């Protein structure tokens, strides 16, 4: 770095943990004035936590953040704002029914004799847009703007507030190629005017084009901060994954795998979510689908299970075509799905463990129109033993269990119907190591007994150790297939990150 100016922001020894999981440990980082600083890492590497600490949403347990040499009090949004730090989130926080000017000045309107001074606000709005070199109509409600235009408004708002560090969290995730180009131009414009930008993105091309330096996170630790011209794409990916495969061993042979095709998905397409999804899962086989969050994996899982509709394509179970968009039909055909978000989609938290477990087998445990208590208890006890659910008793509320045990209950609910084809969407997210190992053991056991398993996971070691075959999704498409026995984390990541536009089309 030739630049010798004093850093704008200095982060020293920041640590933060959530319920025993170390999200950030002893992170030191500085951001120079007028620098675009890239932030990279896998999902869950600690990027979001760092952003939250900087934005004052979360207070770190140790460490200091100083702005221009002055310490920033932790977890204080107002102090952060006063220090000139602004965040543009992935989802826009704009007021859709207010127009551009109203959005720019919301909360800090310019007043004259206690009345709104619309003219002064419009003048300032025009000035800031001129500075950013964009033209947008001042009187149009934001609802009529595109997502990219809304993001421009947010950037303009940050500029109006004399922002000195702008944090952008995957700003281009939902933008088209042209919109992305405009946005990148804007970021450069901002840099010219002396604003520092902390830029989080999964798109390595953008990082390369835009950033002066890039910092890589892995498992809550800072791996390295490197000037961008000393790093190529593969080195960057290497920094992100470079970790040892954990203790769980891979499947040595494809135990129990047969040639019998259990599920076949052909040409599945859903507008705006995914396209061209085709694969087969055989009985006794685990097919892993890797990719970044937002690559469209959950959407595919939900479409197969009938939870969402899709526009084109066919799903066959044991050769028979499956009715579109009907969960009941999917269950009838022997499909089960453990959804991504266990608190909101997997469990009914105020209900007891027992009630949650028996939810899928209510008709089986009903005798003479009433739920047979004995049958229910027997089934529930069997499932709890099999999954080693740790709960004081089956009458406990599901909400009071730990994450790992909650996940076991979700899994148990589906094992109760003895599925032929099990879809698991992030089955061990936020689950402790012991429960994770048990869930893995169970998935293998069931698959070896003849079940077909489709597992979507962002957890690379999990993907590599469990899968017989791996397909990687990227931006709604299958980017490539790997053999589970030989695939490496690097190979998966290389497929998972979007290529530049030219290669995409």
């Amino acid at each position, binding site marked *: 770095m030739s630049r010798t100016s004093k850093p704008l922001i200095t982060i020293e020894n920041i640590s933060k943990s959530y319920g025993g999981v170390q999200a950030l440990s002893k992170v030191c980082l500085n951001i120079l004035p007028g620098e675009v600083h890239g932030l990279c890492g896998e999902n869950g590497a600690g990027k979001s936590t760092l952003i939250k600490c900087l934005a004052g949403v979360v207070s770190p347990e140790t460490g200091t953040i100083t702005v221009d040499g002055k310490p920033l009090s932790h977890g204080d949004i107002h102090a952060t704002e006063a220090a000139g730090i602004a965040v543009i989130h992935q989802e826009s926080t704009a007021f859709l029914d207010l127009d551009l000017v109203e959005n720019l000045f919301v909360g800090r309107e310019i007043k004259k004799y206690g009345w709104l001074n619309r003219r002064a606000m419009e003048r300032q709005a025009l000035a800031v847009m001129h500075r950013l070199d964009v033209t947008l109509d001042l009187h149009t409600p934001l609802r009529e703007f595109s997502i990219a235009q809304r993001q421009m408004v947010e950037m303009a708002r940050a500029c109006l507030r004399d922002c000195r560090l702008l944090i952008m969290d995957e700003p281009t995730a939902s933008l088209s190629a042209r919109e992305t180009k405009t946005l990148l131009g804007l970021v450069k414009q901002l840099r010219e005017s002396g604003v520092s930008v902390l830029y989080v993105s999964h798109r390595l091309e953008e990082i390369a084009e835009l950033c002066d330096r890039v910092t890589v996170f892995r498992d809550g630790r800072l791996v390295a901060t490197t000037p961008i011209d000393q790093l190529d794409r593969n080195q960057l990916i290497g920094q992100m994954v470079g970790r040892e495969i954990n203790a769980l061993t891979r499947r040595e042979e494809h135990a129990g795998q047969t040639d019998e095709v259990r599920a076949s998905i052909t040409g599945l397409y859903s507008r705006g979510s995914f396209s061209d999804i085709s694969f087969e899962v055989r009985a006794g086989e685990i097919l892993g689908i890797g990719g970044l969050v937002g690559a469209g994996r959950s959407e595919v899982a939900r479409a197969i*299970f009938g*939870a969402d509709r899709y526009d084109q394509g066919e799903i066959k179970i044991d050769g028979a075509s499956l009715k579109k968009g009907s*969960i*009941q039909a999917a*269950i009838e055909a022997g499909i089960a*799905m453990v*959804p991504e978000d266990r*608190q*909101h*989609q*997997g*469990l*009914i*938290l*105020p*209900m007891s463990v027992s*009630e949650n477990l*028996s*939810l*899928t087998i*209510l*008709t089986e445990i*009903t005798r003479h*129109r*009433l*739920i047979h208590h004995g049958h229910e208890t027997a089934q529930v006890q069997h499932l709890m033993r099999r999954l080693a659910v740790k709960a004081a008793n089956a009458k406990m509320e599901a*909400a009071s269990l730990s994450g790992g045990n909650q996940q076991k209950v979700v899994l148990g*609910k589906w094992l109760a119907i003895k599925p032929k084809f099990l879809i698991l969407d992030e089955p061990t997210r936020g689950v402790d190591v012991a429960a994770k190992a048990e869930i893995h053991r169970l998935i293998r056991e069931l698959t070896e007994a003849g079940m077909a398993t489709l597992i979507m996971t962002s957890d690379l070691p999990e993907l590599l150790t469990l899968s017989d075959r791996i397909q990687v999704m990227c931006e709604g498409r299958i980017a490539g297939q790997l053999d589970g026995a030989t695939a490496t984390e690097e190979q998966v990541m290389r497929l998972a990150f979007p290529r530049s536009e030219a290669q995409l089309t």
Partner: protein
Amino acid sequence: MKYRREASLIVLVGALSFLATLFDASFVPANAIDILINSIPTMIISCGVMLVIITGEIDISVGSLLGLLAATLALLSSTAEPGLGIHPYLAIAIVLTVGTLIGLGTGCLVVYGRVPSIIATLGLLIALDGAQDWLMGGGDIKHFPQELRYLGTGTTIPINLILTILVVAGTGLLCHKTALGRRIYAVGSNPSAARLAGISVTTTKLFVFALTGMLTAIAAILWVAKLGNVSTSTGAGLELKVVTCVVVGGVSIRGGRGRILGVVLAVILITMIRTVLNFMDLGSEAVKWQRAIEGVMILVAVTSDHFTQRNQPGGKS
């Protein structure tokens, strides 16, 4: 404590009985059956509305629906002008069918039309009220056949009370002992998780609305049988009383929680308040007090609901 709401309702019923006994030692034994009989329409309809609220919806059209069904029954079976004088059993069957169908229609409006239930049933409340006025054409309808009156005034066995007990017991079994009951709670607690567990949220909601319509029809029949008179104001304001009872009985307005016992106790308590106030001979003042007390009870019930549920994650968004 799981049964906290039921316990506090029992304490309130006890305290009220004690107060009444201070005024008149024979009040409770003399009025117990009366209180129960007076509570019949509210009790029966509350069973249905409770289920609707547990699924996370609401039905505030039941008062008007009762009025309309009572008017229909009166017109069909009354032996005097403008009644048609058809056989009372046939009239009863028609009213039960119409009630169920209107309930089902309400459900369709909410489920398929995606109209928020509070708005859909508010519209129905007004529309059904208008239909009742139009049917009645102004005057009261009296003179009903004996077979019908017997249901409400049977001298030796109180048939209406027995029917009510059956409805309450049936609702209790449905809620706590059947697959459908489980599904009703699941749908109200977390609709997206219920859906992903293969439960049809649509069918479940249609069922509770249709059942409420049918229970309202039963209540309308017993109402006509007991009073032998239907006017344009029959059923007016009943929906508020029913919702009050359900909420005071501990059913969460956000859905997913509530037990039949609490609702039964709340119906008894609220009917008792009215009887005691009447008994204290406050004249027209009593009505005002009644409404003030009921209002405060709703507020207390809903606020305590808020405080007990506030710290729980997940559930409905």
